[in-house]
C-alpha cells in the first residue's frame, strides 16, 4: 500500500526557532491521529503538508504530488478544517460552504446544490441561512467541516474538529468522520488534544514533540500489552484476594475504576490462577478481559522522554 504522505528530513525554521526538526513520516490510508503538546509543531507540519509555508529543507510527496512544487494540486485534493474560526462576516452558513465549493472549482449552481447536501449531512438545518457571526461554536464547527468536505477531497486534515462541541455533537462528528472513512473511502489526519477521540476513531497514531516524530504506530499495536495482562472486575476489592494473587508471582494494580489489572507470565495460566484465587477468597468475578495500554500514559511517557532528551541536548550543547 502506497503512503498518502511521505516526508523525508523535513525542517522548518521560523527565524531562530526550529518548528520542525528533521521529520521523517509516512502516513498510510485510514484515520491517523496527530498528537502533541502545544508548540510541538503540529500546525507547522499541517501547513507544510498543505504547501502554505516554505520549508527550510527536506523532501516529500503528498497524495503523489511533490511537496514544495505542487502546492495547488495538493490543496485541490485535500480538505482542511482549521482549528481557528475562519469565516467571512456578512455571509450565511450556506454561502460560506458555497463559496468554499466555488474556490475549489465546483460550478456555481452545482456548488450550491452540493453545499445544501453537505449541510444536510452535517445536520445543519434552517440556521444555515443565518449570518455566520450569529452562530454558536458548534454551528461554526459544522460549517467549517462542511466547507472542508464539500469538494469531495481524497484526504481530510481536521485540526481540533471537536473542540468546543458538547458531548452529543462530538459523538455525531466522530460518527461522520467514521462514515467518510468507511463508506466514502476517505483518509483523515486528525490533529487533536482529546485522546478519547483518537482512541475511538483512529487506526494509526503519530506523536509529535519538540518538532520531531516520537511515535508512529497503529493504534492496535499500541493498545496491545506485551506481557499477558487482564483487567478483572470484581464485586468487592478484597485484600485477601489481592494477596493470594501476589503470592502466586502475579503483579496486581488497582485502577481508578476499581477494577484490577493483573499481569502474569502466560495468559492460560493467568486466567486459571485468577479463577482459583476468586473461588478461595469467595469473590465474584463480574468481568474479565485482556487489558489495553492507556493512550494517555503512552502520550505522557513519549512527551516526557522527548522533553528529557531535549534538555540533555541543551545541557550538552
Amino acid at each position, binding site marked *: 500500500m502506497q503512503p498518502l504522505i511521505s516526508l523525508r528530513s523535513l525542517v522548518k525554521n521560523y527565524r531562530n526557532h526550529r518548528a520542525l526538526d528533521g521529520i521523517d513520516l509516512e502516513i498510510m490510508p485510514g484515520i491517523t491521529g496527530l498528537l502533541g503538546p502545544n508548540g510541538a509543531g503540529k500546525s507547522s507540519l499541517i501547513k507544510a503538508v498543505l504547501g502554505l509555508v516554505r520549508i527550510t529543507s527536506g523532501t516529500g510527496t503528498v497524495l503523489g504530488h511533490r511537496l514544495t512544487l505542487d502546492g495547488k494540486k495538493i*490543496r485541490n485534493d485535500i480538505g482542511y478544517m482549521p482549528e481557528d474560526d*475562519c469565516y467571512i462576516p456578512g455571509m450565511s452558513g450556506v454561502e460560506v460552504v458555497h463559496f468554499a465549493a466555488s*474556490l475549489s472549482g465546483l460550478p456555481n449552481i452545482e456548488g450550491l446544490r452540493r453545499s445544501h447536501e453537505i449541510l444536510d449531512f452535517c445536520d445543519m438545518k434552517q440556521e444555515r441561512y443565518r449570518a455566520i457571526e450569529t452562530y454558536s461554536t458548534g454551528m461554526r464547527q459544522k460549517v467549517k467541516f462542511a466547507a472542508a*468536505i464539500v469538494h*469531495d477531497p481524497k484526504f481530510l486534515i481536521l485540526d481540533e474538529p471537536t473542540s468546543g462541541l458538547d458531548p452529543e455533537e462530538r459523538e455525531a462528528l466522530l460518527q*461522520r468522520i467514521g462514515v467518510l472513512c468507511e*463508506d466514502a473511502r476517505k483518509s483523515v489526519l486528525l490533529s487533536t488534544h482529546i485522546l478519547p477521540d483518537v482512541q475511538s476513531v483512529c487506526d494509526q497514531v503519530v506523536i509529535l514533540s519538540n518538532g520531531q516524530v516520537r511515535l508512529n504506530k497503529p493504534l492496535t499495536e499500541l493498545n496491545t500489552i506485551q506481557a499477558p495482562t487482564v483487567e478483572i472486575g470484581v464485586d468487592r476489592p478484597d485484600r485477601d484476594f489481592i494477596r493470594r494473587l501476589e503470592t502466586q508471582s502475579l503483579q496486581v494494580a488497582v485502577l481508578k475504576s476499581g477494577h484490577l489489572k493483573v499481569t502474569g507470565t502466560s495468559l492460560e495460566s493467568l486466567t486459571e490462577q485468577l479463577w482459583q484465587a476468586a473461588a478461595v477468597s469467595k469473590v465474584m468475578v463480574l468481568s474479565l478481559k485482556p487489558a489495553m495500554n492507556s493512550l494517555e500514559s503512552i502520550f505522557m511517557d513519549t512527551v516526557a522522554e522527548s522533553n528529557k532528551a531535549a534538555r540533555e541536548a541543551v545541557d550538552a550543547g
Partner: protein
Amino acid sequence: MPVNHLGYRPWKEKLTGSLTRWWCISSSGISLAQKSALVKRMLFAAWLPVLYWGVGFFFIGQALEGKSEFLPATLQEDVRQYIDQMPGKKREKIREAEKGANRLVVAALLKQHFKRIPQVGRLADGLESGDESTARNRIWCWLMMSFFRYPQGLMILFLVGAIAPSLISRDIRSRAFLLYFSRPIGKTEYLLGKFFIPATFIALVTTLPAIALYVFGVLMSPDLTVILSTWDVPLRILLGTVVLVVPTVSVALMFSSLTQESRFASFSWFAFFTLGHAAWLAVVFSHALRQGGAIPFKVDIMEKAEVKRWGLLSLYNNIGEVQGWVFGFSTLSDAWAGLLVLVLITVVSLAVIYRQISSPMRV
C-alpha cells in the same frame, strides 16, 4: 432527519480550471458589497451626472448639425455675439458656408462658457482649424474626459473609500485567510479577486455610463458613419478607466492590508487622497495671492512650472494629467511625471499587499 437527506455522496463531475477561481472571490465580494445601503445610494448618485453630460452631447450634436433652433435662446445669443466679434473674413466664412462652419459655432460656445480653462481654449482653437469629423472626435473626447475627471473622479473617492478598506482587513480579523489559502488559490489570485471588487464598481459608474453616453452620441448623429471618426473614443474610455482604477484600488487595498480595523484603512485612504490634493491647492492659492490675483483665479496659473510640479503630490491631479494624455489633450512629455508617480504608487502598494497577505501564514 429531513426527507431529502442523502447522506454523503461522492462528487464525480469535473472541476473548473484554476484560471477563473479568482473571479469567485470577486463575485462573492461584489454581492457582499452591494448589500450595503450606502453603496447602493452611491451607485445611484454616481449615475446622476450622466443626465447632465447627456444633455451636453445632445446640444453639441445639434450644434454640429447646424440645428441652432435646438439651442436655448441664451446660447443662441452667445453664438451671435461671438460671431459678430469675429474678424471680417472669419465672420463671412461662417455665414457663407453654413454646414462647415458649425464647428466654429461650437468653438464659439466653448470659448464663451469655459474662458478660465486653458484646455478648453486649446480644444476650441483645434475646432476652428480642423474639419467636422475631427471636431466631433475632439468634442466627444473632451466631454468624456471631463466626465471622468470631475463628477466621477470625485465619486471614486467615496466609492473606493466605502468598499476597498474592508476587503483585506476583514479577512485578517476573521482569519478568513485560511478559508482562501487552504484551497488551490495563490496570493496573486487572491489579490486579483480582491482588486476586481472595487474595480467592478468603478467600472459601473465610469466605463458603463461613458459607453452609454457614446452610444447616445452615435444615435444622436445624422448617420452611423460617425463611428468611423469616433472609433477611438471607447478605447480611450477603457484606458481612462484603467488609469483611474489601478492606482486608486491598489492604494486603498494597501491600507486595508495594513490593519485589522477597516475604519483605520478608510481614514488613511481619505487622508491620502485629500491631504495630497489640499497641499497642492495650498500651493496654487499661495501663488495666486502672491501675484495679487483675484479669487477665483485664472486656471492657467496651474500650468506654470513652479506650480505644476507640486501637482505630483495629488493622486487626483496625477490621474487627471494621465487621463488628459489618454484622451488626447496633452502629450506624453506633459504627462510622464504624473504617469511615473502613478506607476510608483501602484508598485509600492502591490508589494506591501503581497507581503501583508503572506504574513498570516508565517505564524
